[in-house]
């Protein structure tokens, strides 16, 4: 009697356990990652930020601030590029919000949400692709750095550690921007809101200048700014120096941000009408 209502191919699937196994979940995420990659291939301009931002930023900051802040461009490259790595993750992460928001403008999200897949898989796929984009941006940034005189005193593993730390922190921010993208009404307002959050964090940090040169209140802000922790950790991983505290703080921030914003984002995604 169980099959009467299901004439065609769904009989087996319908009778199965309603939960979605890990393997199926990975397969779904894979199919959705493929979708996002194909979207980039269809619209290569969407990669401009990841490709050009690191080039423009390094040239701009090294030549504008280099002489003033550290006395020489070469010295400043070694100070700033690790910090810029931290910033790159955040800038790439911003794009996630606008992407999620405009996805909802088309009917395709309705299709996903009426399919037997974990609803988080749509968001996780998005994050996997964005981490890929952030990795591309980081590699270009490092190449630019090497051209301008970056040297890795602390060995390859230190460098890799810095890359992984930056990407992990960037991924945690993506959940925040996804949440923003799900809450805001238009892609433009996502962009606007994101800028307000991002700018003070970027410049009120140790990324571009040493906090000791700043007034007391700002120095205090930079000390608690997670981007400073990340920049310090990356810098010391690449140039050598004490890493434990700043790396630990960064990991804690990343875990904390994800633990709060990821469930909120998935819940919002589930209930968005």
């Amino acid at each position, binding site marked *: 009697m169980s099959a009467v*209502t299901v*004439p065609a191919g769904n009989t087996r699937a319908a009778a199965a356990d*309603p939960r979605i196994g890990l393997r*199926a979940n990975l397969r779904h995420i894979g199919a959705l990652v493929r979708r996002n990659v194909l*979207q980039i291939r269809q619209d290569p301009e969407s990669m401009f930020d990841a490709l050009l931002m690191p080039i423009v930023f390094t040239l701009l900051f090294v030549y504008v601030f280099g002489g003033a802040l550290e006395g020489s461009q070469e010295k400043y490259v070694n100070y700033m590029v690790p910090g810029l790595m931290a910033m790159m993750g955040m800038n790439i992460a911003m794009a996630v919000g606008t992407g999620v928001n405009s996805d909802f403008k088309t*009917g395709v999200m309705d*299709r996903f949400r009426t399919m037997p897949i974990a609803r988080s898989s749509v968001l996780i796929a998005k994050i996997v692709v964005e981490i890929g984009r952030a990795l591309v941006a980081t590699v270009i940034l490092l190449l630019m750095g090497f051209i301008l005189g970056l040297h890795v005193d602390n060995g390859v593993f230190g460098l890799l550690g810095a890359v992984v730390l930056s990407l992990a922190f960037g991924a945690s921010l993506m959940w925040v921007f996804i949440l923003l993208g799900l809450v805001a009404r238009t892609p433009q307002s996502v962009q606007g809101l994101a800028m307000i959050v991002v700018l003070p964090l970027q410049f009120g940090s140790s990324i571009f200048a040493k906090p000791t040169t700043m007034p007391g209140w700002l120095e205090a802000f930079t000390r608690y700014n997670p981007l400073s922790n990340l920049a310090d950790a990356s810098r010391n991983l690449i140039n050598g120096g004490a890493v434990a505290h700043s790396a630990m703080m960064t990991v804690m921030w990343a875990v904390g941000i994800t633990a709060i914003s990821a469930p909120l984002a998935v819940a919002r995604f589930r209930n968005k009408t």
Partner: protein
Amino acid sequence: MTQRDAKSADTAVRVRGLVKRYGETKALDGVDLDVRQGTVLGVLGPNGAGKTTLVRILSTLIRPDAGTATVAGYDVLTQPRQLRRVIGLTGQYASVDESLSGRENLYMIGRLLDLSRRDARGRADELLERFSLTDAARKPAKEYSGGMRRRLDLAASMIGRPAVLYLDEPTTGLDPRTRNEVWEEVRNMVADGSTVLLTTQYMEEAEKLAHELTVIDRGRVIAGGRVEELKAKVGGRTLQVRPVDPGVLDAMAAALGRGAQAVADHAGGVLNVPILSDEQLTEVVAALGAQGFAIAGIDTHLPSLDEVFLAVTRGSGTQEREELAA
């Protein structure tokens, strides 16, 4: 207690007392309906009647405030995951990824429905062929025409061979030719055994595709039943007799007597006679023949769905509203 008792065996969709509020307005205000296995139920109503809200609840996109709904025996509130395995949805707006090609769209959905790579590819090609999209298979969907996009959307809904298919105003905004193509596909799906819940504003569409109709207005069911039943409810058939000589219309009316309520339509050159039974039809035709009137044509017609809709919405308070507005 099993989820599928004998009573619901041939009912694919069962809705009881469904309510959905948005602030003060009730999008749905106690809707009941049944869709029988393997049939098409047309849900007919004007804009804002609650049709899309109904479909969104039945496809687990939104939760009702009260009432129950089951699809293929699965409850929308307690078994949404199982329910999603047996449904397909084609909305008013094409729900495909615009930047992906038709083939990539269908392949992706196949993979999300746990088909193997090979099966997903095979099924995509099969459906592209069936929906006449093979030539455009590699083009991004945003370059498709409105009709092609809608067909791709239908194809996407069919990948998992859903037991129940929701078509939410599937031909809104399409030209007549494309509309016919979509209708043809819907008929094919039903022939393959799908159960369809179709919402529409077009009487013609409901008449062409639906076995049964539910008319809703402002969140309430105001009429329902088989298409013919609904028409009969509004009034019986009308017999139209066209004499060779239009001059005899009044004489024909007189010959039938007052009780027949025949109305001569001089402009159209026909005599309209309301008919309530087959026996009466025979009597009228026989009476006219016995009198020796030369008849050029004879026809019976059911009231159109527009007339049905007007008649039933009048009953649900539309008239009062109009009177208040006046």
